[in-house]
Structures are given as structure tokens and as C-alpha cells.
């Protein structure tokens, strides 16, 4: 924020100088005093005088006034015309949009300076003509920006909702479309200030802008040019003024447009995961453990996942269940370095016998895609819309080191597509992601994940965006892969009912911690933690009489793992006692099964 103000400072000085020129200027900028010509800077004339003895400081200040006036006028005209035209085009769509867009395209492609020269050539120099000439090419980008913004909003449901509420088109445009369209235009305008000031100076420099005797920066430059060697104070001050304004305007525009989301190079340079020595010695008892995660914590830098431990055995499916924001996705992606670079992960994760935490990018590539495959929720976002399905899978096959010549790679690709149950792989490989249904795209993602013949498949909400029938088929596919390839899987979901079709064991997460884990059937039939019980109550029952209310948990989902010193679920818990808010419960083994653990101080009462 302070830096934005700092960047804008020259612009503020420019605006004040322009507005208050008559007050600030020591003398009349047009007062000629030939006896005092070409005086160097002194107490009387802080910036000296020119060849006609006029005070340079006053001329600079009045120059700012003219630049400011022209800039304000041009911006007002082009913003108004541009935003209104663009908004109308975006709102109407169809034919009107096409016609207006073509006109805007033409206006944008015209070279601005040439248009200005032509207009002034025909109409002669002068302030009004200058404004007309510059507005003629300055409006088009605003129209384009506004149109894009409005067209993007046009199909959005909130306009449908407004229409249903009976809002008139005037209200929809005026109250709901113009303001969002105006915002990016204002950001652009802050950059435009610079180019308009520069344009005015350039035209005046060429003798086509503001005619003498009015003071104008560009004109001062041309007048000072012959004296560059003998009287430097003539050309330098206006030159510096123009540079400062243009520079500040560009920087400000960049800052406003970038906001805080600008990716910083520093983030990529700074090491994120602290390296931890592999102190994990595999023992005979856990011979079939494929992935073992111990005491994993992830922070940004405030912790979102705290001391999470879980393990996946060969040929078994572990489901991680929790509400959005409970840290379930973070805990499964962290071991594979798939989080935002700013995340700090600590703890240990061993795949087979190798430590995963703190691997270099090169070492990661030998694990990800080869020993571990990942499937994400949004298949449309994962697949590149411009590449065919075949190209995607081919690439995965080559990355996994199973590729060969083109035809050989494609054969592996087709084999993979057949494996995930897609019909006619050869034809499908030539199609693009948008031509496939959501369920088919998700199968393609699985095929890509399987390219390296991984030991472990990580699926983050793989079926949440799909219809129930498609979801059921996909879950069956995952179950088949587990059985036929004896593959291990981690499936992340917010829906216990969905994963219960597939999972062997389940870990329930709440506010960044695992609150219960164990074999699926035990957890479902004999939940140890009140939160798990609450989740089970929220699932619709097949035999319920229509209109039956769900038993719900009061309150809002928990926030971070470190927000309370006690149990994060205590404020919503039906069986909480005072002790629960003070002492944090740890995972304890329950009597029902050796691997069934629950973190409840009330001992699963």
C-alpha cells in the first residue's frame, strides 16, 4: 500500500501543480522581459529564464495545467464513450456485439499518432482539436475492456436471479454491470495518463499541439533545444517532468493491475520444504505398507494441517474424509510436493523405503508419475484444451520412461485407455478434452495416472463433479484396478457414502487433524468420535419417510488446527465437557479393533 502511494507521488505532484498553477506560479508565464533573458537558476527564478526572459518555473507549472486539462478531458470522453459502448455490446451480444466489436477492433488497430496528425492537419492546432484528435484513438481500448468484462458476466446466474426478481435491463446494466466494467478501465486509465501526456508533448514538440505563447512541456522542449549546450535549464526541467509523469503512470497501472496476486520470483527461489533426515527404518511388520506419513504439518506459514499420520497398505484403499477446508487435500498432496510453493511442510513420508519430504525437483520427477499417479477433481482444468487426449497420455507414457517410437508410445496409450474402460481408444485419442463427457475425462485422467504403472494412486475428490450413475461406474473402475493390479489408493472425499463403496480403511479429518481412523466397517458401525457420528447422521437414509429432518451438527466448520488449545470440535460437540476446551485430545486406540483410533477425551462415550 505505501509503495503504491510512493509510486503515485509524481502523479499527485503533477495534479496539484496543474490545479494550483495560478497560485503557485511566481509570475505570469507569458510575461516577456528581454533584459532578463537566459538567466541561470537563481533566487528570483528558481529554474532560470528562457530566451525571452520568461520565468521557467511558472512555465513548467502552467505546462502541467494544460497537460492535466487535456488529459482529464481526453480520459473523460474516452472512458465514457468506451465504457458505455463496450457495456452495451457485451450486454446485447449477438449481432450488435459483432458490429461494435469490429468497429472497436478497427479503432484499436489505427496508429494513434497518425490519426491525431490527420485530424490536426485538417482542423488546425488548438486545445479543442487536440482533445478531439486524442480521444478518437484513446476510447477503443476502454470499449474492449468493458465489453470483455460484461460479456463474461452476461451468462452468470446472478443476472438470471436479478431478472427473476423483476429487475429492469436499465437497473441490471447500471447497478450490476457498469461498476464491474468500470474497475479495470480505471486501472487502464492510470497507465493512459502517461501516454496522453506524452502524446500532447509530442504533438506540441512538432508544432501541432498547443500554439505559443501558452506554456506547454513539449513546446518548451523544442524551444530549449538550440540552447541545450549553453542553457541546460531550458530543456531539462520539462524533459524530467514528462519522464516522471509517464513513468509514474505506468508503474501505478502495473501495481493496480497486479494487485497482490503477482507471482513473485522469490517464491520459486526460496526453499519451501525443510529437509529432514530419513530416520525411518523399515521393519518386517510393515512390509506391506506402501506409503507411511508421520507427523505431517503444513503451514502457509500458519498451520492448516497439524501432525497428521496415516499409512496405506498394498492393494488397499484409504479414504480421507472431511468438510471443505479440513485439510484433507493438503495432507495427501503434501508428500508429493504438489502444494503451492509457499507452503511449508514438515514431518516424514516414506514411499517404500525412500523419504519423500524435501526431495529436489529432479528426484520428485522420478517419483511423481512413475511410482505415484494423481487424479484431480476438475478434469477440464487438468487437461489442456488445445491438445488431444492421445497427446496427453503419450506425454505421460514418455515421462514415465515407457515411450519409444511414436507408434510404440501410441500403442501403450491405447492400451491404457482400454484399461480404464474407454471404448475405441484409437478414435478417442484423436479427440479433444471438451468433446468428452465428465466421466470419460476422469477416466482419461486415471489413464494418465496409470501410465507409469504406479504403486499408489492418489485421487482427490475424483467423482464429486459427476452424476451418480457415472460416479458408480468410476468407483467400480477404481475397485477393479485395485483388485487386478493390487494397486494402493488414497481417495479424498467429503462424502462418506461415496467412499464407503470403495474404501478399506478411513481417516476422518476435522480442522486440520485426523480425529478418527480405522477399518471402514468399524468406523461406520461403531464411530468413536462425535464428529464422525455427526457426518454419518448427515447422510440421507434410503428408507426415510419423506420430510424427515436430518440430525445436524450446530455451529460452523472448524477453522485451523491451532485456533483453539483444546479439541477443535468442542464448540459443536453434543457431549463436550469443560475439559474438552482446554486439553487437546490425542488419537487413542479403541477396543473395537486394533487399528481403530479416535481423538476424543470422552473416550468414545
Amino acid at each position: 500500500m505505501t509503495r503504491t502511494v510512493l509510486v503515485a507521488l509524481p502523479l499527485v505532484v503533477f495534479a496539484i501543480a496543474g490545479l494550483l498553477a495560478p497560485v503557485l506560479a511566481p509570475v505570469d508565464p507569458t510575461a516577456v522581459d528581454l533584459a532578463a533573458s537566459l538567466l541561470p537558476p537563481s533566487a528570483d527564478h528558481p529554474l532560470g529564464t528562457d530566451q525571452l526572459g520568461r520565468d521557467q518555473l511558472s512555465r513548467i507549472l502552467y505546462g502541467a495545467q494544460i497537460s492535466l486539462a487535456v488529459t482529464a478531458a481526453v480520459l473523460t470522453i474516452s472512458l465514457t464513450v468506451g465504457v458505455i459502448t463496450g457495456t452495451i455490446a457485451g450486454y446485447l451480444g449477438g449481432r450488435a456485439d459483432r458490429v461494435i466489436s469490429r468497429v472497436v477492433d478497427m479503432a484499436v488497430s489505427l496508429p494513434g499518432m497518425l490519426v491525431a496528425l490527420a485530424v490536426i492537419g485538417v482542423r488546425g492546432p488548438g486545445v479543442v482539436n487536440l482533445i478531439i484528435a486524442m480521444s478518437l484513438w484513446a476510447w477503443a481500448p476502454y470499449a474492449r475492456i468493458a465489453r470483455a468484462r460484461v460479456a463474461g458476466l452476461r451468462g452468470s446466474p446472478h443476472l438470471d436471479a436479478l431478472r427473476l426478481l423483476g429487475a429492469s435491463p436499465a437497473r441490471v446494466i447500471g447497478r450490476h454491470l457498469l461498476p464491474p466494467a468500470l474497475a479495470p478501465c480505471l486501472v487502464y486509465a492510470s497507465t493512459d495518463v502517461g501516454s496522453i501526456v506524452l502524446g500532447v508533448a509530442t504533438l506540441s514538440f512538432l508544432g501541432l499541439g498547443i500554439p505559443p505563447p501558452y506554456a506547454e512541456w513539449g513546446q518548451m522542449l523544442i524551444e530549449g533545444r538550440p540552447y541545450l549546450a549553453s542553457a541546460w535549464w531550458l530543456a531539462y526541467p520539462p524533459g524530467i517532468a514528462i519522464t516522471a509523469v509517464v513513468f509514474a503512470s505506468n508503474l501505478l497501472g502495473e501495481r493496480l493491475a497486479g494487485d497482490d496476486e503477482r507471482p513473485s520470483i522469490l517464491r520459486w527461489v526460496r526453499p519451501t520444504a525443510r529437509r529432514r533426515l530419513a530416520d525411518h527404518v523399515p521393519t518386517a511388520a510393515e512390509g506391506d505398507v506402501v506409503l507411511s506419513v508421520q507427523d505431517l504439518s503444513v503451514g502457509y506459514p500458519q498451520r492448516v494441517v497439524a501432525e497428521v499420520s496415516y499409512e496405506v497398505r498394498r492393494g488397499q484403499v484409504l479414504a480421507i474424509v472431511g468438510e471443505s477446508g479440513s485439510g484433507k487435500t493438503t495432507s495427501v498432496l503434501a508428500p508429493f510436493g504438489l502444494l503451492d510453493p509457499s507452503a511449508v511442510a514438515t514431518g516424514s513420508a516414506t514411499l517404500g523405503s525412500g523419504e519423500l519430504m524435501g526431495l529436489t525437483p529432479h528426484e520428485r520427477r522420478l517419483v511423481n508419475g512413475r511410482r505415484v499417479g494423481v487424479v484431480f477433481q476438475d478434469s477440464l482444468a487438468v487437461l489442456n484444451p488445445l491438445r488431444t487426449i492421445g497427446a496427453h497420455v503419450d506425454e505421460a507414457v514418455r515421462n514415465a520412461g515407457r515411450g519409444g517410437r511414436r507408434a510404440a508410445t501410441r500403442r501403450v496409450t491405447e492400451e491404457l485407455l482400454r484399461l480404464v474402460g474407454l471404448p475405441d481408444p484409437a478414435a478417442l485419442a484423436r479427440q479433444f478434452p471438451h468433446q468428452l463427457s465428465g466421466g470419460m475425462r476422469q477416466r482419461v485422467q486415471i489413464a494418465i495416472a496409470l501410465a507409469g504403472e504406479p504403486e499408489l494412486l492418489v485421487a482427490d475428490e475424483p467423482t464429486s463433479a459427476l452424476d451418480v450413475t457415472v460416479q458408480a461406474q468410476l468407483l467400480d473402475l477404481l475397485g477393479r484396478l485395485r483388485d487386478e493390479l493390487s494397486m494402493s489408493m488414497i481417495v479424498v472425499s467429503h462424502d462418506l457414502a461415496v467412499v464407503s463403496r470403495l474404501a478399506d480403511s478411513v481417516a476422518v479429518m476435522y480442522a486440520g487433524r485426523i480425529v478418527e481412523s480405522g477399518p471402514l466397517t468399524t468406523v461406520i458401525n461403531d464411530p468413536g468420535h462425535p464428529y464422525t457420528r455427526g457426518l454419518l447422521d448427515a447422510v440421507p437414509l434410503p428408507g426415510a419417510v419423506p420430510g424427515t429432518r436430518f440430525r445436524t451438527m450446530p455451529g460452523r466448520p472448524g477453522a485451523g488446527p491451532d485456533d483453539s488449545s483444546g479439541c477443535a470440535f468442542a464448540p459443536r460437540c453434543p457431549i463436550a465437557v469443560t475439559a474438552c476446551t482446554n486439553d487437546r485430545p490425542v488419537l487413542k486406540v479403541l477396543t473395537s479393533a486394533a487399528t481403530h483410533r479416535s481423538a476424543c477425551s470422552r473416550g468414545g462415550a
Partner: protein
Amino acid sequence: MLEVERLSAGYRNRVDVVKDVTIRVDAGEIVGVVGESGCGKTTLARVITGLSRPRAGVVRFEGVDVHALRGQALRAHRRHIQMVFQDPYLTLSPRQTVRQALTEPLLIHRIGDARSRSARVDELLDLVGLDPEVGERRPRQLSGGQQQRVAIARALALEPRLLVCDEPVTALDVSVQAKVLNLLCDLRDRLGLACLFIAHDLAVVRQLADRIAVMHDGRIVEQGPTLEVTTDPRHPYTRALIAATPTIPFGR
């Protein structure tokens, strides 16, 4: 109250996505429409609310053809049927506070003065179980469940008789979904609100709806009282849908 008769509709000149649909909703009744994405559920909802026009057939509300209304009569009719959309975040303007969003429909229809509007907003927040302080927040500061409550509150601002809900809980967590569904049941009991509840998830619909219509490929393939449809499905598609619906295998 709502009668949809032999309705067909589609996009512009393309093929119909809703084919020959007949369905009715009585006062105070919740009717569920189940089907997978692309089966025409959303188009049906848009035609019923008047956002889209049908190619054939009529939508009658209290005996009046909805699509024949124009001007003032249409504006007056709008108050009776409101809609709740799938993604509450997209249906709320990110620039408005909750209070502004809830006042908007009252302003559009020039209902009351500033004070009575403010009182009505408090009433609406209370009706959907939100704290008054939530009124000062903007949509992105709310959880998904709260956003959907706000969207429901806004739909209720004009005291509609029928609420068309298009996948209102699909974007929500299971535990939050349960609360929103309870809210809809409560509203029906307290306000006598009728509801056309559209969803792809049969598990949700069968716990909520009095009657169910199963939609497949633009047509309604089976329709009847909920328990009848779910326990004794006639159409093969209904059977497939029931088999695919995830349930928790208690006592396995």
C-alpha cells in the same frame, strides 16, 4: 398450483432438450425432479421460472399461462415464482453486502420505506437461520452453506408461492447440505411454500420430496409418490439410478 403441460423446449433452433414434459406441483408440496446432467432438468427449471421460452406446451401458474404475460402483469407474476441456483456464490453479486442483496428485490418492487425494508431483511435473515451480523458481510466472506442461505433468503424476500431449486445442495459439503435441506423442509411447514426440487442425487431427493419425477433424456420416465418410486421402481432407468446411489453399508 403449478401445471406444466406437454412442455418441449430447447436452445434456439436446435433439438429439444425437454420433451413433452407434464408435471404438477400443488400448494405446500415438495416435488423432486431427478436425472443426470444433460437430461434437461435445468432447462425445465428455466422455462418454468420464465427465464427461457418453451417451443411447445404451456406452463400455468394458478391457471394463468406464464409465458403469455407481458409488462406489469409479468412483473407482478415474478413475485410468485423464485429460483435458487446451484452455485450460491455465482448468484450473489460479489460487490453487494448480504443486506444490500436482500434489499434489492424490495427496491425493485418499491416495497416499503427504508425502515420497513430493513426490518424485513432482519426477518429474512432470521427465517433462514443467519445472525443479523452476517448482513454486513460480502459473499466471499461467507461459507458455502451461508451463501446458499442468503440466496434462499433473497428468493423469499418477495414472498413467493413456489420455489424452484436447481441443484441447491450439490456444491455443498454433506454436513452443510443436511442443514440446507432441513431449512427447506421447515420453510415448507412454516410458510406453506411449494417447492420444485431438482437434483441429480436421488439420496437427497427421496428424503425430502413428497413426489418424485425421474427425468431421462428430456422426458419424464417415471413419476409418483416418493416411497412408491424408490421401493418399487418400474422404469429400468429408475432402477439403475437407485442402484448407483451411494449409501452407507451399515452393519456390513
